[in-house]
């Protein structure tokens, strides 16, 4: 797999799809040579204490085993770089409290489990480079995520996330941010600080508008937006409601800069004029009151 290039083939053990009911403790006889261990797709329900015997272990894949919790012994592996435990039965509280002590850990994959809360232990993992948390039941992302300063890949697709903390914008090393298939209604403009971001996946959310600051991201070459009301509304809401005469008069007064004071117009009209709103498009100097065409397009001069 992608991550194991640092391990010569003779130091890899592949026991995936082997019908195992127990963790192969007997392999510890050769522990000094085992750097990569694939145990995915078995029936290993428990990660036993014996895992700490494998002191040379760099990569461990224990996906699809029906695991309900991860033993603290994992943190006694000084060289562990990759831990993959996707498609198990892990829920809140399943991870060892001391997981943050695993300073060597760079890649953590917990996709396809049942977490509802972002585990606190992960928030402090400043050395983590990739976190895969797809297809769980997360509803929010904690602002403490800002401590994960080395994070390059953050996969949160397929959860129930309805908003993002602005602190996600502090993850300055982030190159890939996946948020598709969630319940996001907006994106904080602070994401524009992610100078290293190359891909942003936002498809299938409930986003009505994108902050225009996203345009500033020069390294962003992959962006998915389909399945958001951002796109759908444009087709449906091209309205044919003409503005009222009152509106047109109001616009005329404002756009022409005709001076007026409180005594010059009836109080109800004076109040009406104060409700004029500016179009958010910086290039548009006009105002509107109630009637406007909702131009829902995403415009950017680097994708043209």
């Amino acid at each position, binding site marked *: 797999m*992608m991550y194991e290039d640092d391990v010569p083939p003779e130091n890899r053990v592949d026991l995936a799809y082997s019908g195992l009911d127990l963790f192969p403790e007997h392999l510890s006889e050769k522990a000094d040579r085992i750097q990569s261990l694939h145990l995915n797709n078995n029936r290993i329900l428990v990660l036993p204490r014996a895992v700490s015997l494998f002191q040379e272990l760099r990569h461990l894949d224990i996906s699809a085993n029906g695991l309900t919790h991860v033993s603290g012994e994992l943190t006694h592996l000084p060289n562990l770089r990759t831990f993959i435990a*996707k*498609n198990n039965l892990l829920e809140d509280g399943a991870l060892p409290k001391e997981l943050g002590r695993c300073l060597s850990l760079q890649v953590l994959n917990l*996709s*396809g489990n049942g977490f509802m809360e972002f585990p606190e232990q992960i928030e402090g993992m400043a050395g983590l480079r990739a976190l*895969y948390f*797809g*297809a769980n039941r997360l509803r929010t992302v904690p602002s403490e995520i800002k401590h994960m300063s080395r994070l390059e*890949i953050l*996969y949160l*697709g*397929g959860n129930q996330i309805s908003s993002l903390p602005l602190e996600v914008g502090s993850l300055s090393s982030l*190159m*890939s941010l*996946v948020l*598709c*298939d969630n319940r996001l*209604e*907006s994106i904080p403009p602070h994401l524009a600080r992610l100078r290293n971001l*190359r*891909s942003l*996946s936002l*498809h299938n959310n409930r986003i*009505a*508008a994108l*902050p*225009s600051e996203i345009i500033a991201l020069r390294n962003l*070459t*992959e*962006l*998915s*937006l*389909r399945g958001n009301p*951002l*796109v759908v*509304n*444009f*087709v449906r809401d091209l309205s044919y409601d003409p503005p009222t005469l009152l509106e047109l008069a109001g616009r005329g007064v404002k756009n022409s800069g005709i001076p007026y004071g409180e005594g010059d117009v009836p109080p109800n009209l004076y109040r009406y004029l*104060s*409700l*004029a*709103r*500016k*179009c*958010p*498009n910086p*290039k*548009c100097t006009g*105002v509107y009151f109630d009637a*406007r065409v*909702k*131009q*829902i*397009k*995403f*415009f*950017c*001069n680097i*994708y*043209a």
Partner: protein
Amino acid sequence: MAGMDVEMRGNAIDEMLKKKRDLNPLPEPETLDDLVQGLKIIFQDNEINVEEVNEYMSKYKTNAREWYKYAKFDHHRYTRNLVDQGNGKFNLIVLCWGEGQGSGIHSHSDSHCFMKVLDGTLDETMYSWPSDSEDECELQKTETHSYGKDSVAYINDSMGLHRVENSSHTNTAVSLHLYSPPFDMVECFDQRTGHRKKVRVTFYSKFGQRTPFPDQGPTCTEQADVARTGCTSVETLEPENN
């Protein structure tokens, strides 16, 4: 065969080759190598029998050890990894799809396109060609399909456009594509407007070796339709009282 014109001679050769395969059917493709060699024989013909290719590709049972060297994934988008150039008659390519990765909506340059899933699951959404009449019109979805390991799908331009994606958030997907004749340009379409643009398709690796492309240019992954001026939705932005 003297006295026949070129086309008649070509057809006669095709018939002979087909009859030869009917009498001596190709052996079952046990390995990826077998598959490639068998496809080269099939594609000696001028006319392609879609059913025959479909059936032959179905017979190969995926074995990760055989295509592992082509399975190079990228964090940001799906990759295209050239396996064989089919003596100029076709390109055989392994596509690697990370979790959640998908293509844009595209056509197939008047070529045959076969897709066999080697790992994971791929979802296909088909669309009709945009009509020539209207300027901007949303593309119409026609069918959706889900393809699992070892299944084979086929498409050509007369059938419409499609988007292919790995919808899984936990598993990657790998597929084997055969395009005949080979092409290096596709048209990519915007779902909302039907606008199309030509995109050069490049290889992430060739014959197992990584081949970075200096300047990617526009790619055929999904991209929002763009223009140079305009504004984002008025609805949710805070109005400034004037």
